[in-house]
């Protein structure tokens, strides 16, 4: 299986995603420059974290106009698998590939800390190796991570089981206190209707080795590797 990690100017999380795929899942992986329009040969595209274009205008608001976004749209239309992490999630929402928006944290400050998230959907291409209700410990690091969508969209997401991850306490309760940024419904990650595009604010690629304090991100990466194409 071949992964591609998209590099926009300012995508500083590119290396984290690259190393996690190469060293932890053992799959082949290449960087893809954002001006590229050819995604042939790739099975899964990662839009990494960072601050593409310095988060100017809005986080992800400039990157969505890069040539690669159209290529990713076609890639996903053809059934290709796409995940956006942190800034990558913001770009996917800006590009309309995922529903909703990411707003500034309700604390109005950047927050970096390990959080607990609950796997609410374990049948997606991104969570098949996790158990339903499993509590993962993953780091967050963002200023613009408050997931927001209107109530109709929220109802659809909830009804269709498209909420992938939800901020929760140690026991898996999605409490207000466990919500680090004010996301609606404690939502930390979602998938599109077809189930082949996912976005999440927590960073699974930063939690893949014991030496880094958590290996809970491995099940997300491994889910992508093992899900049927």
């Amino acid at each position, binding site marked *: 299986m071949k992964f591609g990690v998209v590099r926009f100017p300012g995508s*500083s*999380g590119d290396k984290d995603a690259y190393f996690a795929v190469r060293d932890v899942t053992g799959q082949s992986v290449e960087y893809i420059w954002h001006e590229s329009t050819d995604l042939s040969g790739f099975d899964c595209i990662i839009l990494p974290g960072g601050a593409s274009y310095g988060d*100017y205008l809005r986080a992800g608001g400039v990157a969505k106009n890069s040539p690669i976004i159209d290529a990713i749209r076609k890639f996903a239309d053809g059934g290709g698998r796409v995940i956006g992490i942190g800034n990558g999630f913001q770009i996917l929402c800006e590009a309309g590939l995922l529903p909703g928006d990411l707003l500034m944290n309700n604390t109005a400050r950047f927050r*970096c800390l390990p959080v607990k998230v609950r796997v609410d959907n374990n049948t997606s291409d991104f969570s098949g190796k996790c158990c339903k209700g499993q509590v993962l410990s993953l780091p967050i*690091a963002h200023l613009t991570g408050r997931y927001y969508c209107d109530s109709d969209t929220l109802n659809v997401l909830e009804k269709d089981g498209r909420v992938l991850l939800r901020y929760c306490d140690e026991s898996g309760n999605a409490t207000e206190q466990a919500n680090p940024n004010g996301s609606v419904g404690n939502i930390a990650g979602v998938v599109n209707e077809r189930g082949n595009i996912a976005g999440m604010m927590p960073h699974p690629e930063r939690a893949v080795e014991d*030496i880094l304090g958590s290996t809970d991100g491995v099940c997300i990466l491994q889910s992508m590797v093992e899900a049927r194409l």
Partner: protein
Amino acid sequence: MSITDTKPIEPKEYKEMGLNEAEYNEIVRVLGRHPTYTEVGMYSVMWSEHCGYKYSRPILRLFKKYREAIDGAGLENAGIIDIGDGLGVAMKIESHNHPSAVEPFQSAATGIGGMLRDIFTMGARPIAALNSLRFGPLDEPRNRYLFEQVIAGLGYYGNAVGVPTVGGEVYFEECYSGNCLVNAMALGLIRHDEVAYARADGVGNSVLIVGSYTGRDGIHGATFASVELNEESESKKSNVQMGDPFVENVLIEATLEAIASGFVVGIQDMGAAGITCSTCETSAKAGTGMRIDVKNVPTREECMTPYEIMLSESQERMLAIVQKDKVDEVTAIFKKWGVPANVIGEVTDDGLVHVYEGDDLVAQVPAKSLADDAPTYQLEAKEPAYLAALQNYDLSQVSEPADYNEALLAILASPSIASKQWAYEQFDQTLLTNTVVAPGSNAAVLRIRGTNKGIGVVVDCNGRYCYLDPFVGAQIAVAEAARNLACSGAKAVGATDCLNFGNPERPDGFWQFKRAVEGLAEACEFFDAPIVSGNVSLYNETPEMAVYPTPAIGMLGLLDDVEKHCTSEFKAEGDVVVLISGVRFDEGEKLPVCERESLGGSEYLKVIHGIVAGRPPVLDMEQEKRVHGALLKGIGDGVIKSAHDCADGGLAVTLAESCIAGGIGADVKLSANCGPSAALFAETQSRVVVSVEAEKLGLLREIVDAYRVESTILGTVGGDAMTIAVNDVEIINVGVSELDSCWRNAIPGKMAETGVEC
């Protein structure tokens, strides 16, 4: 072409730029004529204290590596420390104090940017940032504003540029109220065979300016950094540079790619004194000259004069010297990343920097005279009048507190001691996936990808100790940094220093500076952690007061096996708590006659009694080094499960922090040779609290004997409260959750108080 017919510059004009009459006359002597207006500007910044170190240079020669560099190949942007496997760590710390006092957000941000450029212009990939900060008390709205904005600025830049901030320190003292200290530190990883140098070699090679366009921001920033702050400082906001972390991010990638191409002959960051500094320093170092045309410098504002272009401190710019037939290849790399790169001149062989504006020659100066020949001054040093009375303060007259629990909680809630989570949560600590130990333990620990190795990194300084005795205080800063590394399992291998002091032109200010550097130089050599880079920031004072002498020490340690690192929190019920200390009782070494003497300069005296007096604790470097040896052995052998050094706040605070971090209590018994407050809160040096499994006590005993240090069993880990009995009387009994909330909520509580004042 040469410059003739120049007229004398009015004394009022050159004095405004910071030059005195003797210095002006020296310029006239060097040039053999009066300087042009542009030339005076260039000399004034290069000969300022900030760039020319005119007051500090004679003292800095005490540092071995500095002496060797100055007498040899010259200073590089940052120092490199060997960590084996063909790898080195480039490391530097730098101040951004004065601008932060007037424009905290942008200045703190710019501080990181400048540091990172010093690192990656050597060809090193930046892997981590740290910071060392000092503010006035958070009870003052202005100080809350400065603290909030500095943290936000550091986070804004560091997070967006893509470098994790993994550690730091923050202290709050009255003396920093008008003049906060903002020191940023950065580290980069490099292969020794890929180091790039700041040299303009090869006559005919092309000189490029790379990065942001040049604007009018930051003109005379270096001069501003070399005077005291006063009520007019607010009007110097135009001296403050504006940073753009996105530009820096792509500059990092493009620069590293360009250096890897092999076509870049030399490269230097443009920081203080901008184009002036980078052109003359790279030429002087290579023994060459340079001819540039300011009309080829892309500017972001119309009608900029040569003077403005030469002195601008616009951020995210670099000077690159490129093989003359490879300019297209190199500019293509920068273009890919969207980074402007323009040829502005070429390397010459006459030792002169020629600055043209089109056909007009506007400056023609010997590169070496600007870069290396700043006049130096031997200033008078005199012990401050305040010192004797403070040092001789009779500590026996200090009363015991009414309630030891209350005293402990008050100290834990003192912002200098309390949790800094409020601040470091605003920094991305885990980006680049190397962070093994994040902020909040002893030192930060990073793994070195592709090896089994790790590095520990820390920054330390207790300014109060330095105020009470700059020589001993500086040595303690070094010892504590090395001790923090040892507690993490890392052996100290090198250091960088940021010397923050007051006005050196006052004899007592210069005495503080001189004594501190003497202490640092001796201690760094003793602990095998030579200072490889650094920065001097003087004139840190307002008309009301000077800051405490604050020589912040950044130190790097090495772990051969990163898996064998250690952290500060108690790990498990039933583990034995042991104090390892430098004094060896059976060999006749003694503690100070009464431990109360180690209360001098303590947090306890300040917080509980409102007293800043006494002498700092005694430091015996031989003992200290043996403690480090025992720790490294005990951690490496897997005997020691947790280690936390006794520093600010004393033993009780150390124990409390290990309980809080582990979420578990401890039952401890101490014996005191004088009042209980000294047993709890004295800041006696060379001590570390460790925890071990009971069955490993024998192994620990063997280690402490081998290293000739003392171990004292204090108690056991367990329960949900911390209890301490002194001479068999229990005087501390506080639930861990209460310790935790008191320590954790102190700073957020202060910051929530009735807003901030800009």
